């Protein structure tokens, strides 16, 4: 019988009396990327700690390929690689020293060079961890998560603080892992990242899963998937907003108008006519696909960040 890479059922955890994980169920399959989205304090990092066995669940179960990460840590730690958001590596050592050491802890490690080369670690191999920038530390931490040749990888905000180039390297690593059959659990704030990389997304808020599905399913499930945005040459007058609201749900901020609810061509024409009647000029106009950020806002009434 084959087990999913990760199965979580009815997971609960509290800090004191404050419940941070409140009944989470999720499954991660080999060869796919599971995106875990949610604002700060939603319980994402705690869920990862519970999943890798560094915390004991209050109730509920966690299984990594059928093994309990607390009771069978010797087995699960060989199977799962972890990049913790606030996880660190010894500050007084150099990156390759750390990776060489970590590789001795695993049964079948990846040769250090195979990770150091593509992640560009040789560029700063002579410096101690303490002297690395945030982005450089992140790259070493990613290598540390992968050094044990894991079949399940937890990446907690792997691209936080990375420049676009390093981000692209990390993204291609993540896609490559999934292509090679590794299960990836990716927590992120970055919606574009979640959309780009995830096969499935779960949205967590206040310790519960509030939505789940493929990124495009989540977008279409929440209704109007497109909106019209118009930028004017001056601030939007209130009278114009009132006028446009007759056409559909409208919001305005500064000189930017957004007409939601998948407006039709004739509604768009009417909107442009209303702008012309108000004697204003359009400096930019376009159709915007609804993002996961909008989905999150609709689900919770709060912005994601």
């Amino acid at each position, binding site marked *: 019988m084959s087990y999913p890479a990760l199965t979580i059922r009815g997971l609960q955890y509290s800090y004191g009396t404050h419940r941070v994980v409140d009944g989470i169920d999720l499954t991660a399959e080999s060869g796919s990327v599971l995106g875990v989205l949610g604002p700060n304090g939603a319980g994402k990092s705690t869920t990862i700690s519970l999943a*890798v066995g*560094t915390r004991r669940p209050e109730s509920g179960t966690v299984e990594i390929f059928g093994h309990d990460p607390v009771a069978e840590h010797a087995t699960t*730690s060989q199977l799962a690689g*972890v990049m*913790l958001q606030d996880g*660190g590596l*010894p500050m007084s*050592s150099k990156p390759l020293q750390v990776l060489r050491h970590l590789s001795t*802890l695993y049964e079948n490690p990846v040769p250090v060079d195979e990770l150091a080369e593509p992640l560009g670690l040789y560029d700063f191999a002579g410096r101690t961890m303490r002297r690395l920038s945030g982005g450089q530390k992140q790259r070493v931490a990613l290598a540390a998560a992968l050094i044990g040749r894991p079949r399940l990888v937890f990446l907690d905000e792997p691209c936080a603080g990375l420049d676009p180039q390093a981000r692209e390297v990390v993204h291609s690593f993540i896609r490559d892992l999934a292509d090679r059959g590794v299960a990836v659990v990716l927590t992120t704030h970055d919606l574009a990242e979640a959309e780009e990389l995830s096969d499935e997304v779960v949205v967590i808020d206040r310790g519960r899963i509030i939505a789940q599905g493929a990124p495009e399913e989540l977008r279409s499930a929440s209704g109007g998937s497109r909106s019209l945005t118009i930028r004017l040459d001056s601030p939007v007058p209130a009278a114009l907003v009132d006028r446009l609201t007759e056409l559909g749900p409208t919001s305005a901020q500064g000189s930017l108008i957004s007409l939601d609810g998948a407006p039709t061509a004739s509604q768009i024409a009417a909107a442009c006519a209303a702008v012309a009647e108000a004697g204003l000029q359009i400096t930019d106009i376009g159709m915007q696909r609804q993002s996961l950020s909008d989905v999150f806002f609709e689900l919770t009434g709060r912005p994601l960040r």
Partner: protein
Amino acid sequence: MTSTRIVSQAKFETLSVLRNGEQLLLSIIFPLGLLVFLAKTPLLTGLGVIEAGADPLSIAVPGALSLSLASSAFTGQAIATAFDRRYGVLRQLATTPLGTNGLILGKLGAVIVVVLIQYALVFAAAAILGFRGPVDILGLILTTLFGTAALLSLGLLMAGTVRAEATLAATNLIWVLMAGVGGLVIAHPGEWGTVVGYLPSGALGDAMRSAVGHAGTDVKAIIVLLIWGLVGTLAARRWFRFE
């Protein structure tokens, strides 16, 4: 397989200690300085610790050994662990196959290796200064093992419960107090001497002075160290937090 990982961790931690300049100062230069200072100045005779004409090395050598042990097992490891904890290193290592117990045993191994290096340097310097023993090897081994267990567990207890800066400040202060008034280097007379005999520092000092320079085994002092080691280990298991 588990033991290979522990050895690997001990090796890594040993190299980290030896690479750290400040810690090296604390663990090697200060004990050697103390040894030379006590051997070459009339301080011990002046304080009445030894009689006029007696060999100051019989106090200076065990004093330097005890101070070495306290530097590595207590202050050095407590500070290193406190900052590892602060920077999330412990959290990350706990997710590897090393696990928590492997991490602690790796630290214990590293302390013992560093202490052996310190002992070798202290004994070499002592020989140059004219120290000719006696040394009770069994007494020295027991003192080192139980002294390490007591001081390391108490140091880790502090590192795992309070902030890193507080650990840094407190363990350095305690190191000075242990050396100055805690019976680590010299036995204190009177009631204070009785009190410190039951503290880890005083018990370590008593046991070391019996084993080195007087060739005996201070069973009472070693039992006191053993009890502190058990208390420290139980307390650390109970209260140590990885984050």
